[in-house]
């Protein structure tokens, strides 16, 4: 029997009931914590499974497509070339034989039959085949994985919140226990603080129970995956319809906003593209690709300040992005901020040299994209100059000349210098791992394209200089004068077709001629009876010791 006063007994009874009540709340919290933990574990497990399945789908799809393309189609194509050869030779029986063989080989892969083989262009629609084979499926699985992972994270957060609540309830129980051993008003303070914590916990618990979880509807994922498949086939209008469908179900679907923006971009609708990228950014997609694309779109729209700002954000996150840094230089150049542009181009080339040097020092190779971005950096500058000169090409991407209000003379001078610098750096880094050294005395003052003319007996008559060659041309000669050459100097010939280098036509050798004179370089498919130059613009460049000596342009007509 208690010896305490009745008032003390009442207090202790009151605290006992409080403790028992808090115990019930704690047990309920523990139950909810276990529930949330289970949900998190299940979601994370499903995310792991989906991730594995997505990887497997992509790998097995790539394996199968590798066979379809380089097993079946390559064989088909080899036989097709044998047919062309037989046609050139007029061997009817061989034509029949190889045509029949080619048709039989076509049965080995779905890629070589309807609906993937396009008879109108005599070439399979590989993008459509890949989209059907694995792109759509693996995209769906990847999105499902991402959705499950986000759901798992959300449940993890909830479970962790319940753990904190349990800790607070333990503190509450401790306060109530202590209050029993106190006699003064302080014990009521302990009771009040404990009650406050319980009320806070109950409010928090209620919020956790009613707060929505991040859920991505399956229908939105399906529409998104179909959209990605269409975009992969460059069917951007249809892709946009699918992305619209996904966004009508889930308006804040960041990936759908981003991919729809990409499709708008490829359709040349830069305004909608920029708005789409901004919406994707607002929806939570914040990565380098988005910043890169948005910066480039702002540039094409002539919003140079916005472009500089978003490029800078992406560069701050990853300063090693050579392509993006050259974009930044290009934007600054177009905006007339010549000093800043020079800084960016210089840093881009230094970064390229650093990456090549570091890779080679580690016994590795730099990423292949490095060479692509260096080429693209020069091509973008050429596009800007072509636009300003009123001679844009089919492949030109640049802001309209009307939005460039800077000193054009300065811009052109600087751009030409950067183009040369980038091209020389690219050639030198690729073959020496270092930026080019000082120029030698070598000079190539003139370079022209021409055609070799023989008589009926096949004896050489002359070279006819021309800039334009008829369709079907399979042999072009480059005539040039030179001086100051030294035997053994590096000599590189590069050929650009419609703005992009054709690496199969690149020639790398050492200089073997005299130090001064005239020479002819042949660019030819005449060694076969099958190939000719495709129609378009050709630019031939000669580098000596990695310095661009001279270039010449010619056209092959449609």
């Amino acid at each position, binding site marked *: *029997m208690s010896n305490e006063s009745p008032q003390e007994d009442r207090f*202790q*009874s009151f605290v*006992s*009931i409080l*403790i*028992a*009540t808090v*115990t*019930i709340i*704690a*047990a*309920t919290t*523990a*139950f909810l914590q*276990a*529930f949330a*933990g*289970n949900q998190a*574990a*299940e979601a994370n*497990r499903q995310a*792991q*499974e989906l991730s*594995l*399945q997505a*990887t*497997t789908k992509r*790998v*097995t799809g790539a*394996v*199968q497509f*590798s*066979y379809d393309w*380089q*097993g*079946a189609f390559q*064989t088909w194509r080899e*036989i097709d070339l044998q047919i062309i050869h037989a046609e050139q030779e007029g061997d009817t*029986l061989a034509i*029949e*034989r190889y045509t*029949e*063989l080619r048709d*039989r*080989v076509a049965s*080995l892969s779905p890629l070589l039959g309807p609906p993937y083989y396009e008879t109108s262009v005599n070439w399979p629609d590989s993008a459509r085949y890949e989209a059907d084979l694995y792109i759509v499926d693996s995209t769906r699985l990847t999105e499902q994985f991402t959705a499950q992972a986000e759901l798992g994270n959300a449940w993890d957060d909830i479970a962790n919140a319940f753990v904190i609540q349990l800790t607070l309830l333990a503190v509450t129980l401790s306060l109530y226990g202590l209050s029993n051993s106190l006699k003064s008003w302080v014990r009521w303070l302990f009771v009040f603080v404990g009650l406050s914590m319980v009320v806070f916990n109950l409010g928090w618990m209620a919020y956790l129970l009613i707060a929505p979880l991040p859920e991505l509807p399956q229908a939105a994922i399906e529409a998104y995956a179909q959209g990605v498949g269409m975009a992969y086939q460059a069917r951007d209008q249809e892709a946009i319809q699918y992305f619209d469908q996904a966004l009508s179900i889930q308006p804040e679907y960041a990936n759908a906003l981003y991919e729809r923006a990409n499709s708008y971009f490829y359709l040349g609708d830069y305004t909608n593209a920029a708005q789409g990228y901004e919406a994707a950014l607002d929806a939570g997609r914040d990565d380098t690709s988005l910043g890169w694309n948005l910066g480039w779109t702002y540039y094409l729209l002539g919003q140079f300040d916005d472009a500089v700002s978003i490029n800078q954000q992406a560069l701050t996150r990853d300063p090693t992005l050579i392509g993006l840094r050259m974009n930044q230089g290009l934007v600054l150049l177009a905006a007339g901020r010549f000093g800043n542009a020079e800084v960016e181009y210089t840093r881009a080339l230094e970064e390229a040299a650093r990456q090549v040097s570091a890779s080679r020092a580690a016994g590795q190779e730099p990423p292949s994209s490095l060479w692509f971005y260096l080429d693209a950096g020069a091509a973008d500058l050429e596009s800007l100059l072509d636009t300003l000169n009123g001679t844009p090409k089919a492949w030109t991407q640049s802001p309209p000349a009307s939005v460039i209000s800077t000193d054009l003379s300065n811009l052109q001078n600087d751009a030409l210098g950067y183009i040369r610098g980038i091209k020389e750096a690219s050639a030198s880094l690729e073959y020496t791992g270092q930026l080019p050294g000082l120029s030698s005395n070598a000079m190539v003052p003139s370079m022209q394209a021409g055609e070799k003319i023989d008589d009926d007996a096949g004896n050489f008559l002359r070279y006819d200089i021309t800039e334009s060659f008829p369709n079907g041309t399979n042999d072009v000669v480059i005539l040039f004068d030179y001086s100051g050459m030294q035997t053994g100097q590096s000599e590189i010939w590069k050929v650009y077709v419609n703005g992009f280098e054709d690496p199969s036509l690149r020639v790398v050798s050492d200089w073997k001629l005299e130090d001064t004179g005239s020479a002819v370089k042949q660019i030819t498919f005449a060694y076969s009876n099958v190939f000719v130059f495709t129609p378009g613009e050709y630019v031939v460049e000669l580098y000596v010791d990695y310095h661009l000596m001279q270039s010449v342009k010619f056209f092959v007509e449609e």
Partner: protein
Amino acid sequence: MSSARFKAFASVMIAVVTVLGAAAVCLASVAANQAGNADFDGVTASIKAQEATMLSEITTYEHYRAYTTYYRYNELGNLIYDESLKPEADADRITALGELQRQVWGMATGLQYNFFPPRYLNPDGTYNTQREFDEELAEAAQRDELNPDSYFQLSDSLRTKGMLFAGVLIVLAVAFWFFNAAEITNNRAKFFFAAVGILLTLGSIVASLAVQFFF
């Protein structure tokens, strides 16, 4: 029962309920731990299954690539043979075709023996990639557990078990509340509180045993 004896009884029941609560937490924890292990085993099986799928696909298409070359030469030999029978083929051509035919059939035969298993050749000369893939996968299943579903079902079951023990904990907490109420009450209501507490405790014990042994 005197008031002192009743309070002692209520105190003992509070202690019993507390011990039972601790036991329920312990069993829930064990179940959660076992569920985690089952998940791990399931994911391991899943990884092995995906690995086996990829390797089987690679192997099959490696062989199919070799078969494609075989098929090309074999069919070319057949076509050359047909061509040599055509009336427009003269003697020189027939001789040349015969030589070419032996050459390409020789290559086809060489490929057949070394670069793909001829077992998967169908009677019509086509290659059964699906059969080879399925056999490769079945072979991998002989070596490793590739089915994660049984592990994941076990894991789900154990998680539910853990949840049920956590639920029992709530019931025990309510029983704890009633025993407390019984202890501090001096009128006849204390018997009602104690009775409810006892019922809840007994119910919890039965539920725990059912979960432990029958779930």
